């Protein structure tokens, strides 16, 4: 019984890590530019496809695949910001949300057109295979443990980056107050572009982690929709909140899929988020400011 719960819990945490990475992308962009990027899931999908190409067509090792996907997606993210998002800077939030939805459509369409990608489902081999570890009675997949470990490593890296690197501090400053950051000599627009790049890179990392579990296909990005509840749960403007939110959603989903009747697995995340929003309108870690009239 206990081992079963542990097993489910681990599976949930592993899945939650992917949600957390996508939610992290939302939060980074939201904090910096006050826009919600509905194409985050599609960025993840695109990253997974680049990983797929590097791994199967070019035959690169796993670590090189990850680096390749992250680099390419960082460039893609920056290009999106420069071409599409910057012209609408300062427009109402909803307008920008619609534009990111449009970006999502375009990316999904483009992916189906690329030869070798198309509309089929692809499998991205994982270096961890199907190995398992037995702890007590629980059977834990190495792959899931690896996903958790890599997410933790990325989070630590991001923490160090935001805490100590000059660029990381500049990004924090930009997301707190653009005008003040501008007065301090931070090139706000360039930093925003870099934040988009960072966010897309994080999404690509999530996509590669997800690929062995969920396969790579053009509608993979819809998994990213589950990251909304994660981000909302943590309060949209909080980086640790996004990670905790993602893990909660992942675990809730895993438990709901096992203990509740069929159909609850896919909706559990949304039910949780509705309940949370009903009682805490700005999420668990959400910060509330009050508008001065």
């Amino acid at each position: 019984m206990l081992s079963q719960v542990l097993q489910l819990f681990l599976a949930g945490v592993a899945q939650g890590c992917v949600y957390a990475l996508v939610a992290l992308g939302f939060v980074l962009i939201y904090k910096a530019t006050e826009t919600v990027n509905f194409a985050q899931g599609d960025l993840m999908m695109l990253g997974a496809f680049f990983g797929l190409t590097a791994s199967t067509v070019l035959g690169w090792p796993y670590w090189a695949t990850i680096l390749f996907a992250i680099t390419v997606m960082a460039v893609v993210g920056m290009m999106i910001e420069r071409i599409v998002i910057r012209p609408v800077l300062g427009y109402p939030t909803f307008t920008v949300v619609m534009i990111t939805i449009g970006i999502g459509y375009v990316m999904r369409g483009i992916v189906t057109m690329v030869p070798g990608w198309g509309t089929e489902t692809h499998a991205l081999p994982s270096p961890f295979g199907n190995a398992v570890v037995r702890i007590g009675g629980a059977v834990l997949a190495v792959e899931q443990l690896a996903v958790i470990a890599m997410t933790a490593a990325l989070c630590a890296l991001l923490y160090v980056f935001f805490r100590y690197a000059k660029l990381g501090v500049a990004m924090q400053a930009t997301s707190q107050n653009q005008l003040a950051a501008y007065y301090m000599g931070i090139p706000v627009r360039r930093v925003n572009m870099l934040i988009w790049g960072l966010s897309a890179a994080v999404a690509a990392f999530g996509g590669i982690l997800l690929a062995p579990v969920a396969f790579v296909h053009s509608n993979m990005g819809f998994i990213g929709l589950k990251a909304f509840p994660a981000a909302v749960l943590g309060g949209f403007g909080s980086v640790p909140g996004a990670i905790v939110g993602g893990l909660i959603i992942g675990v809730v989903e895993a438990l709901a899929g096992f203990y509740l009747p069929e159909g609850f697995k896919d909706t559990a995340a949304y039910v949780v988020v509705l309940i949370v929003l009903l009682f805490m309108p700005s999420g668990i870690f959400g910060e509330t400011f009050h508008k001065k009239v």
Partner: protein
Amino acid sequence: MRFIFKTDYDQDIRLFQHGGQVFWYGLLVALLIAAPFLVSEYVLSQLHFVCIYSIVGLGLMLLVGYTGQISLGHAAFLAVGAYTEALLQSKGMPFFVSIISAALLSAAVGVIVGLPALRLKGIYLAIATLAFNVIVEEIVTRWESVTGGNQGKHLKAIELFGFRLVGDASFYYLCLALTALSCLALVNLLRSPTGRAFVAIRDSEISASCMGINLAKYKTMSFALSAALTGVGGALYAHKVAFITPEQFTLLTSIELVTIVIIGGIGSLHGAVLGAAFIIVLPQLISIGKDWLPAAVASQSGLQSIVFGLVLIAFIIFEPLGLYGRWLKIRSYFQLFPFYRAGTFRRQKSYMRSERLR
């Protein structure tokens, strides 16, 4: 250039501001009534969809364009309307009863969604409605005894006053009448204190509540009215396609419905109708455009998705006022000729309009 001399306060709230409007709208109505005799069957069938989407677009415009509340879950109301209609029809209810029930039930669901909206703003509301959409879709799929689940549900032709509406033309007149009624109802609503209250809430919730507008009441009302119109649209949609399954009411449908409002032009009833027409015409334009593209590109299934996305992006960047805004610009260009200036309609950018500060 037309000058309107106002000699009476009633002139401000008249349905038609001047004789020109009476003439042009009259002409439009005459053309629409004559349409079944003028156009081919295929075009008429597309006109059904334009009418249905217009009704839904009008409902969404009331919520998004006039009350300023975001909804990414309107496909759920569409589903409620469609399934209510299908269910009541199979129980042998007359059309009048079933379509009014569809509207009322959607409105009731709208109130339920509107309640969290009282506390949520901006993106949180969008995500709450998105979550609601996903949940409703799942309920529709799983509640097989009522909705038929993935097997879908068939609908018969409408019976009205003992006549069966079998032909395309008769269904067209029904849709047209309901569209016209919805338009008229909304025009009247927006001229009334209720409509003014909606607009006040959109422009600033704080100042609206300072002027004594009950935010809770009006926001819920807006959700209910919007949902009711969408429910009517859903009922007609169910009859039009005659076979409904849960896949027709997904999040993507919701997004398509919001696109109607964005492309048409936020904050204008004309925009809702123009946007609906555009969304229906776009796939036709794409299939026409395919003839000029190289075969390798044209045969791809992703083309429609790309064009849809690009059109959406292009509209927001280059024409934030939508199709109706474009028409206003063209009209004032000719009215003011040669004095039109590009800056007339320029929107002011508001940098850092922060939502975190509230």
